[in-house]
């Protein structure tokens, strides 16, 4: 079964608006990552936030992490049509069974 659930499942906004996606996970993690997937393509890594961090920025991306609530959010500011894609969170834990487990994804549509 998948580790995370994402909300909303689909999001449609206009160019220039901000897009916020939320992710919840179930077990303790070492880090949480966000990936983007364009239609018919592989996943591309966007940003990684460690369990001892609360917020991280990368260009137009802002990620927050609340380990007490086992949740994370991804904010894309000033969205562009090229941001249209599916976005997945992935929770990572390191140990005897290190693995990265993906959520269900949010489909973002940015219209002109």
């Amino acid at each position, binding site marked *: 079964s998948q580790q*995370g659930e994402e909300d909303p499942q689909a999001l449609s906004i206009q160019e220039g608006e901000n897009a916020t996606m939320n992710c919840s996970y179930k077990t303790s993690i070492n880090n949480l990552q966000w990936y983007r997937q364009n239609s018919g393509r592989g*996943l*591309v890594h966007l940003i990684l936030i460690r369990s001892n961090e609360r917020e991280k920025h990368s260009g137009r991306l802002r990620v927050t992490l609340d380990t007490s609530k086992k949740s994370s959010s991804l904010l894309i500011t000033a969205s562009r049509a090229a941001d249209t894609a599916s976005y*997945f969170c992935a929770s*990572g834990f390191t140990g005897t*069974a290190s693995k990265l487990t993906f959520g269900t994804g949010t489909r973002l549509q940015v219209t002109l």
Partner: protein
Amino acid sequence: EAGVAQSPRYKIIEKRQSVAFWCNPISGHATLYWYQQILGQGPKLLIQFQNNGVVDDSQLPKDRFSAERLKGVDSTLKIQPAKLEDSAVYLCASSLGLATGELFFGEGSRLTVL
């Protein structure tokens, strides 16, 4: 730097037939992953290799799926016999090590089972 290479990109087979997918990871990446992504869902880990050893294959349907990574470089994933529910995209990814850092994905192999 070359990315993760996968082939074939598309494959259509009938149920009960067999199929094999190939993956060549980024040079120097010790960890290799095979994920299954069913339409509309997130990727699900099938098997994870560290060099040529299996780290995790707990979600691999071993009665029909097999994977190997000979010499710790490229890998093949085989399905025999295929079922209708195996229709999915099979994604290969690699990373430098086991510390669950960034994964680099290939473009995927889309399988349709009729």
